[in-house]
């Protein structure tokens, strides 16, 4: 221990109450920072989990262009061409050959999963009740890989769809509306008039009510057969990437590989993106404010300490300690307070987070407030805490080093 560190130790331990107050103020700031950010992180994760339980990060589909080509073009300047009520004609439906696209996507490393879907609006009949539903033909393995579908299955088993070609899984809301339960039979009727009887092998609940009220899942091959489509036909290719925030850039790199529309999730869900950003801003603004208030606390305490120690500073100066030593002595006190408060704050913040995490709070799908335990939040909280205590301690220390010892010693 250097001489200056020894002086710091004596100064700090001589005023335990003050030390505790200063450490507590830092601890409170840091723990609130940790808690706020853990909470907001949790909310963001929860939100994106719900969103991406039915939506992929990138979707490839056959887009119906809204701008019809001009049927007749004008030849001469004095001609007038008038076509009223021009119609769009869709020449192709869906994606004819998904295998080719899948092969092309193999080289893109960011992609973590690709699931083909064949989506079609159908009628579901159960006796007299008849309801519009969205039939999804899915590749079960890949679908589970992208959406974690198996986790949302309430009854039955997702992979039963592979085992029997008349198996269907219904959204819980949908099953309730048409009044069927596990192992009941229903009839699917396509817009082309084809009918087929299916057996309910499971129910699924994602938490998004509109989805649960309209969705029916079958094996993609069964759907192709029902709709009279070829072997590698699909309407949508759902793609997951390693970092969903980068979906826009990855979508741009995929677009040249296919003539179909490649759409990142952000395009249709700007509200989610901005919602997340807003929550992060609120969290950081609130917690930084708390940290800064804690910083003022330290500034006050250190200023008081310097005022109390004017005589000691002058004595040290007379004994041959220079201004660098004085700055070091007072700055080290603040850094020690920041360090101690920082560690206590991380622990206390973690405790608050765990308490809130385990407190029952019924809200929709939630049993308690969502909470993330992200090491990055903890590291940042600690770093901010140290920076703020450093600044708050440096100013009084600088003032202490500039005090004129002669003024003090002469009384």
């Amino acid at each position, binding site marked *: 221990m250097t001489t200056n560190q*020894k002086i710091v130790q*004596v100064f700090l331990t001589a005023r335990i109450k003050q030390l505790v107050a200063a450490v507590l103020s830092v601890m409170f700031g840091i723990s609130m920072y940790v808690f706020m950010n853990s909470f907001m992180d949790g909310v963001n994760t929860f939100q994106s989990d719900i969103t991406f339980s039915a939506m992929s990060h990138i979707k490839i589909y056959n887009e119906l262009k809204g701008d019809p080509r001009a049927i007749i073009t004008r030849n001469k300047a004095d001609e007038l061409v008038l076509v009223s009520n021009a119609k769009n004609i869709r020449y192709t439906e869906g994606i004819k050959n998904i295998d080719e696209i899948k092969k092309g996507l193999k080289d893109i490393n960011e992609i973590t999963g690709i699931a083909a879907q064949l989506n079609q609006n159908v009628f579901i009949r159960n006796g007299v009740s008849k309801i519009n539903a969205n039939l999804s033909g899915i590749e079960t393995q890949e679908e589970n890989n992208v959406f974690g579908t198996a986790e949302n299955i309430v009854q039955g088993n997702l992979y039963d769809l592979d085992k029997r070609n008349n198996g269907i899984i219904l959204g819980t809301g949908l099953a309730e509306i048409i009044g069927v339960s596990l192992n009941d039979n229903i009839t699917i009727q396509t817009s082309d008039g084809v009918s087929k009887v299916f057996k309910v092998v499971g129910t699924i609940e994602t938490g998004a009510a509109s989805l649960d009220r309209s969705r029916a899942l079958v094996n993609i091959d069964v759907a192709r057969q029902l709709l009279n489509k070829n072997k590698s036909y699909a309407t949508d290719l759902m793609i997951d990437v390693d970092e969903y925030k980068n979906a826009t850039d990855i979508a741009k790199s995929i677009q040249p590989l296919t003539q179909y529309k490649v759409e990142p999730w952000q395009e249709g869900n700007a509200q989610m993106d901005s919602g997340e950003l807003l929550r992060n801003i609120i969290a950081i603004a609130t917690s930084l404010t708390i940290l800064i208030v804690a910083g003022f606390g330290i500034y006050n305490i250190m200023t008081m300490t310097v005022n109390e120690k004017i*005589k000691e500073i002058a004595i040290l100066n*007379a*004994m*041959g300690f*220079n201004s660098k*030593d004085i700055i070091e002595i007072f700055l080290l006190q603040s850094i020690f307070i920041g360090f101690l408060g920082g560690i206590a704050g991380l622990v206390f913040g973690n405790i608050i987070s765990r308490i809130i995490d385990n407190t029952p709070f019924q809200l929709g799908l939630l049993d308690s407030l969502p909470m993330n335990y992200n090491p990055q939040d903890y590291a940042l909280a600690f770093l901010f805490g140290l920076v703020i205590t450093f600044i708050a301690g440096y100013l009084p220390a600088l003032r202490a080093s500039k005090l004129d010892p002669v003024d003090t*010693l002469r*009384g």
Partner: protein
Amino acid sequence: MKALQVQNTNKYFYTPTEFHVLKDISFEVDKGEFVAIMGKSGSGKSTLLYLLSTMDTSYNGNIVIDGTQITGQSKKNLARFRNEHIGFVFQFHYLLTDFTVLDNIMLPALKLNKKSKEEIEAEALELIDLLDIKGQEHKKASRISGGQQQRVAIARALINSPAIIMGDEPTGNLDSKNAENIFDLFRRFSKERGQTIIAVTHDDDFAANCDRIIELADGRIV
């Protein structure tokens, strides 16, 4: 080589109004000399002492201590110089009250960092013996009597064996018995160790036994 040379030194105070405190001061002090600075209050004797102490640097003139030019040096160098060559004893003990007696005495030597902690402690204990404050070394500096505190302050001033010991009314706050003791100590240091002693004092008895008296009146040496 002289212990101290002061040449044509002037000092002004600017607040509240301009005031010429020290007027053209010049004097020299030999090594081992015991000098008292006397004068009425306001005559500038303490101001002069603080110039000599190197803590006050705003003056015109030239001061040389122990062969080293003090005037014009950086604050950092001056702090180092004070640490090594000047021992200071104040009217009030001015100890670091949160520290033990032993720590107070050791601090200047620890700061100088020329000897090991063990050597410094041994020397500090020797000084404690010499100054008759044995048994108090592990008490906090605030817990001992005024006479003892002043002796601790003297021990602190001596720990680095400085060439010059300066005192600002070192006995001004003590009863006559304690004051006499401290005077005798100073006397011994100047005789036995050849240390130069410069003390500002009001005490005529104290001054009468010094080698020389420098008397100030209205900022001039009389």
